[in-house]
């Protein structure tokens, strides 16, 4: 499927391969992935364990490198960047949300968000980011005092506070119950709409795909399906 030329792509990749290890022990995580992700979409990436979806996301997020092939973010070639440039790329453009939250236990919710706003070019106010995830009243709590869903929402607030162009979410609801999970997805949808950020969500929960603009399915290190979702469902209506 080739999008019309007027559409800007957040990401483009050509023949991306990723091999871990070498010789007989080598593991081919990606086997020549060509991908185009239009700007501003919610993309849900599905696939079984070991299909290469996390590896692809890590490469797009600038925390892993390709073995071969090329990847562009807008007009910049990520695969040509050195480590310092990749750091700047993550710092300016990318927000991450992880399955295990990865909050700093020694900082409060607000401070965890401020951790990012202090180094970002054009951040929103930390309070505003927390308001977006509905945690204004929990802002001065430490992670140990928050539930799993709340911790994940702090992680999202931290990711969005820099007003990123792209938001990567690796199993954002994986550690949460369905009710909390829906709330988190609603926040992601809101970020997508308010900030116009491209949101890429990796998940095992196929139901999440119902809210996506696009669903990409990975298998054996390759893209098996790349489907535009024509019947989007609001997060609160997702059947879990």
């Amino acid at each position, binding site marked *: 499927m080739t999008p019309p030329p007027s559409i800007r792509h957040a990401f483009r990749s050509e023949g991306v391969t990723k091999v871990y290890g070498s010789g007989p022990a080598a593991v081919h995580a990606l086997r020549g992935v060509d991908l185009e992700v239009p700007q501003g979409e919610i993309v849900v990436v599905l696939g079984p364990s070991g299909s290469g979806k996390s590896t692809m996301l890590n490469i797009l997020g600038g925390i892993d490198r390709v073995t071969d092939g090329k990847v562009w973010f807008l007009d910049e070639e990520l695969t040509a960047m050195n*480590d310092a440039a990749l750091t700047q790329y993550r*710092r*300016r453009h990318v927000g991450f949300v992880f399955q295990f939250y990865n909050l700093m*236990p*020694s*900082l409060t919710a607000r*401070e965890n968000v401020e951790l990012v706003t202090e180094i*970002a070019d054009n951040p929103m106010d930390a309070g505003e980011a927390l308001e977006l995830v509905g945690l204004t009243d929990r802002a001065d709590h430490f992670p140990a005092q928050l539930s799993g869903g709340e911790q994940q929402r702090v992680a999202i607030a931290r990711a969005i506070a820099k007003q990123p162009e792209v938001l990567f979410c690796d199993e954002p609801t994986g550690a949460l119950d369905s009710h909390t999970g829906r709330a988190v997805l609603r926040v992601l949808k809101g970020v997508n709409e308010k900030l116009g950020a491209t949101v890429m969500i990796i998940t095992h929960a196929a139901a999440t795909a119902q809210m996506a603009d696009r669903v990409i399915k990975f298998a054996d290190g390759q893209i098996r399906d790349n489907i535009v979702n024509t019947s989007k469902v609001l997060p609160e209506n997702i059947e879990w």
Partner: protein
Amino acid sequence: MVSSLDKKLGRDLWRIKGQATAIAVVIALGVLMLVMMDGLVNSLEATRTAYYERYRLADIFAPVKRAPDHVIKEIAEIDGVNVAEGRIFGGALIDLDDEPAPIRAQVASLPDYHEARLNDIYLTQGRALDPTRKDEIILLKAFADARDLGPGDQLSATMNGARRTFDIVGLAQSPEFLYAVAPGEIVPDDRSFAVFWMSREALGAAFDLDGAFNEALVQIGRNGDILSVIDQVDRLLEPYGGVGAYGLEDQLSNRFVSEEISGLRISARTVPSVFLFVAAFLLYIVISRIVQSEREQIGLLKAFGYSGAEVSLHYFKFTLVIAVAGAALGCIFGVLSGRGMVELYLIYYKFPFLVFSVDPTAFAVGLAVSIFSATIGGILVLRQVFALTPAVAMRPPAPADFSKSIAFSDAFKRFLDQPSRMVLRRFIRQPWRAAVATIGIGAGMALSISMLTVLASFDEIVDINFSVINRGDVTVSFIEPLADKTLFELKRIPGVSEVEPFRSVPAILRHGRQKHRGGLSGLIVEPRLNRAMATDRSQIMMRGDGIILAKALSDKLGIEPGDMLTVEVRNGRRPVLELPVASIAETLIGAPAYIELGALNRAMKEPYRVSGAYLRIDSSKRDSIYKAIKNMPAVAGVSRKEAEREALVKVMNEGAGGMRFVMAAIAGVITFGIVYNSARIAFAERERDLASLRVIGFTRGEASFVLLGEIAIISLLALPVGIFLGQFLAIAISAGFSTELYQIPVYYSRTSYATAALAVLAAACVSGWLVSRDVDKLSLVECLKSRE
């Protein structure tokens, strides 16, 4: 068949090989010290005993003015005496062509027609004396080697005022001169002190002692009582001018050897235990951290049905491998460095052989202490882990609760960015963890401080002794006390600018049940060249009848100013005096007792007598001054301050004192080990946070700040802790190094503290750099996947 747990053990050890090696090395260093020092004590003692036995060193030495030969038979019949032999023993001055100053020597007779029954010599080269030749001597090997003399060479010496030339026929070593030091000096200088042996008949002629002896040597039988034998020998020799018999423990060379061994034994007990304690503390920190990180796997093993005992055994084996490897390494290198140290000892202690051998107990103790210290940290943490159910243990630990942290005020917050808050909160939230790391580094620093303090104190001793206390250039001593008009002869020598007389008499000092065999030094009222100094470095004047005691001596006798001291003078009329102690002097070398010269002579009822003089000379006229002194028949010896100073510095740097450098180096290695391990632990505990920071866009430098800030604060906090602990440790280690012969003052120098502080900071910088390289290498992907 290796069990899967043992396979895990092997692979886990391989995984943490760096840290395991660091721990093993620290253990090895502690054990090395233990094995080396214990082995030295053991070897010196065993070799000394064997040497004394083989060459039949006497148990009692009884100097006398002149006793007829038949008296020796009466001594031999005393109950408890095994063998008795009379000999002739005296002083001599050797004159070498290439040496302007006369060289002090002692000469002893050997029996003419039979082997020496006591105090035999070990002939290393040449042949025995021919009793029919009167001009043959056997020379002390150390002096011969230092002066490049050997059999076939000639030597001229002045004995009893007459100068003669002798043929050297052999070289020898003797247990009596194991530590060959001139009387009144403390450091052997092979070049300026000689001993030679002559035929009894020839020496008798030289000292006008035909048919008589001037020293009785006595060997005690198995059940003999040394004190009662000494009493009876004294009674027998009294009519012939007996000076007082004394036991082997008071024999000059043996006293030095005993002091060295007992000093070494104290060091062997204190110093390695301090090192091992610090090592144990470090191990506790590291191993508890390792077990903590295995928490999940422990939960898993328990979930599979392994019992607590099986899991404990697994981790016990883990520490056991490290501890045993470290201890084995320590034993091997302890023996090797012990062998090296033995070579240093042989420079000053002239054993014909010295084999380094370690008491197996030292190995056992080293091993046990290592295993214990390595295991204790693991056990404490295992207990915590076992308290959890397997399910809880397998889950990652909940985020540490920081909610009880003190809230930063808004004003304060403005100064702190988030990374700084992360650093600070960790200290506030987990003060115990930070305290352990701080104390650990502080302990390492204290070790360095104390070793540096001891190093500085050695230099201080030399400086004070030779620049403040002893300001003369040359000390001249006479064969026997002379009228003080002899001083004019010395003053007349061109180039001699100052002459200050002294009188020294051998004496036994008693207070209560304590006694000290030494002497009294009579000094002029206001000495300028050899002074008694108070602790505050002010000069103590000689006044009235009071005695001024060295600190070491007053400690030994348990006496204070105002108390009365009993002085049994051992020559002349041998008066017994009761004298008040006037004050205590700070002397670092030896243990003198001073009294005003006039008062001493009055007490001896021998007015205007002097035993020698301290001279200050014009160094450009040195050679001619020595030549003039050589020609004065009354002179028994000349000692040059510069030579003494050089000899002392040499023994401190190259001899037994060299051990302090080894210890200082080890202290440095341990300090670095602790700092580095603290940094590694901080890194391990922060790995995930650091990776998260990197992922959200922090640069390497910014992420490293969180880690390095912590290391920096811990290191800075450790400085005052190290300074505090270092003072106490310095006192303990100085005491361990001090002997009766020299006292190591605890000389707190700013340089020592500054050096130790810089070492800690440098170690922190290097460790920080090493660890921050790992921040660069952090695998962001792996770290976010793994939960801990």
